[in-house]
């Protein structure tokens, strides 16, 4: 009995009063969910201006040779092209390769083509009559380091003979691809032909215009390629109701940059949209983007750049509607100390500023992001960083649902604030990521954490 008594009552207990006075304060740091930029996610052709186009990737029965040798060669502007060798056997002693498509119902159309010609004769576009015995020729005529752009007629102004209707001033000429754009207009009293020529990098060189009022003038029945002397290669042929020199993009935000890239990643054209969200891109560098498909339209606005790919060709003269949607939407709680964000659009190249943190008081804090948990169905892949105007933290990194790095490095929050930036395939799979924004005094005496919840709604391919 004695040991039990001892253990039960042997303690000495001392009671020291302690008081905790809790005096809450408003949040010294608040956050807001930023407006998402409109992100393009689809491109659809909204016009039907193209009468015919070809990038000469393969031999087509649509084309007929009027003498000369014509074949599809591998050395086109990009991919294959149409090569021709004059044999003096076609109309006017030249050689034509014409599109077997009747055009007499058109009172106006445009023809664009890329051409590479190292001969010293003439090479270009022809407009041919129904009987295949008269033509208008719009051609370049090199002479050493310069060339002229000419408009000729055969068997129109001169019976069974050539007649030069117009000739441009000389322009500098080298062995490169040129783009020839021709406008044809039929009126009851005349045929009006206007043509412009551009260098390989899209620089305008010169233009020429002619009006044929001869009694032997004719409405163009066929359009074709022509070589009169030597050989030439042609590519990206476009016959259109609108000038193929321009591609119209609608559906953009005002003042957005629209940039068109071909499948090789080369910039074809760029333009800033007007107040209506329409941009007219010069595409003389590549009338048919890419090798017929895989063009990429990049839209940049509000410091955010994203791209929409298309599996259909982007052809000069057409109008394309870019469908856009907000990449994310979210809300902060009423105290601006927590936020929830939903991601809708998948775009791997996007870097989206999602949340802005800014101090209410003049104090500076060390801020970091911490991934508390993630529940993902599928392979969520994204990065989350903190960014100031001049610095970026190391990221939270999630690859295929695996957390590679669960927190960011620390950035100092000053008056200009910090942004939470999300990049990667954040829409690809369904997930819920819970994060904390933690800010502390540099001494770590006090740290405050705000909750962030990110939802990916899934449904898109990468």
């Amino acid at each position, binding site marked *: 009995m004695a040991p039990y008594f001892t*253990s*039960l*009552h*042997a*303690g*000495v*207990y*001392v*009671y*020291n*009063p*302690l*008081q*905790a*006075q*809790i*005096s*809450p*304060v*408003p*949040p*010294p740091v*608040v956050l807001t969910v930023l407006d998402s930029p409109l992100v393009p996610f689809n491109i659809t052709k909204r016009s039907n201006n193209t009468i015919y186009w070809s990038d000469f990737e393969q031999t087509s029965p649509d084309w007929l040779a009027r003498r000369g040798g014509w074949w599809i060669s591998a050395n086109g502007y990009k991919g294959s092209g149409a090569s021709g060798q004059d044999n003096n056997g076609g109309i006017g002693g030249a050689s034509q390769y014409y599109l077997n498509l009747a055009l007499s119902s058109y009172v106006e159309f445009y023809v664009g083509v890329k051409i590479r010609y190292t001969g010293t004769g003439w090479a270009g576009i022809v407009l041919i009559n129904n009987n295949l015995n008269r033509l208008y020729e719009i051609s370049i005529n090199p002479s050493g380091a310069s060339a002229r752009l000419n408009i000729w007629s055969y068997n129109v102004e001169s019976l069974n003979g050539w007649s030069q209707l117009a000739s441009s001033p000389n322009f500098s000429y080298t062995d490169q691809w040129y783009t020839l754009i021709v406008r044809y207009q039929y009126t009851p009293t005349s045929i009006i032909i206007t043509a412009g020529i551009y260098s390989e990098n899209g620089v305008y060189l010169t233009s020429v215009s002619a009006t044929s009022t001869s009694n032997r003038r004719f409405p163009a029945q066929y359009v074709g390629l022509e070589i009169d002397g030597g050989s030439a290669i042609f590519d990206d042929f476009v016959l259109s109701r609108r000038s193929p020199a321009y591609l119209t993009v609608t559906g953009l935000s005002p003042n957005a940059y629209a940039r068109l890239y071909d499948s090789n990643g080369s910039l074809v054209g760029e333009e800033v949209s007007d107040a209506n969200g329409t941009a007219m891109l010069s595409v003389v560098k590549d009338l048919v983007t890419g090798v017929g498909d895989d063009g990429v339209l990049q839209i940049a606005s509000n410091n955010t750049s994203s791209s929409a790919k298309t599996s259909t060709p982007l052809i000069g003269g057409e109008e394309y509607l870019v469908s856009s949607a907000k990449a994310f939407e979210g809300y902060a*709680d*009423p*105290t*601006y*100390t*927590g936020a929830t964000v939903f991601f809708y659009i998948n775009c791997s190249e996007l870097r989206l500023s999602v949340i802005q943190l800014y101090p*209410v*008081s003049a*104090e500076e804090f060390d801020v970091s992001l911490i991934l508390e948990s993630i529940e993902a169905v599928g392979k969520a892949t994204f990065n989350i960083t903190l960014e100031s105007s001049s610095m970026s933290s190391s990221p939270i990194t999630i690859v295929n649902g695996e957390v590679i790095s669960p927190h960011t490095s620390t950035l100092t929050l000053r008056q200009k604030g910090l942004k939470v930036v999300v990049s990667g395939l954040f829409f690809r799979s369904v997930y819920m990521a819970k994060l*904390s924004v933690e800010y502390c*005094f540099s*001494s*770590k*005496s*006090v*740290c*405050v*954490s*705000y*909750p962030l919840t990110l939802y990916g709604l899934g449904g898109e391919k990468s």
Partner: protein
Amino acid sequence: MQAGKYILGLTVATILASIVFASVFIYYPAIVQVSPTSPPVIFVEGSNSNQRDLYGTIISTIIDATGTSASVTLHPTYQRTYYSDVLRIKNLDSQVYYVKVNIHSTITDGNLARAKLLFYDGATKVGEVDLLTTQLQPGGWVVLNGNGELKIDFEFIYGTNGGSSTTPPTGGGTILLELVYSTANTETPP
């Protein structure tokens, strides 16, 4: 004879009285030697006592001259606010003591969803006390080693219902508690 009767009556009365008041009082000598000693366990400031708190305030830590009572004033905000090392318990004795906290009164209204006091021995958490529950905590005694120290952290979580970015969360006030320490860890203190 009259005098004899009187004496007889007085004698009887005395005998009767002695019968009524018959208690026996016995006195043994005993000594309680009260010898006050300096407190073996005291409050001392933590590394972040009286340092910056939110919104231009100070983490106020007031400890009386004897080190046996303390008052801390903290200024949390919405969501989770964590205070590190704002108070310490120091053992001046070479023997181990055992520590608990008794919550006498707490905050019961407003948006205060969580309030915790955490004991750290170095970087190791050795005890956690729910400041919103008025009882002796934690369940087990926290060991305060001889000549050792325990750091005290606080954690608060405030909900945001009805709040705004320009107003403090509701749910402030005073939490009264006692630090209880003992030489023994085998029983519940009285």
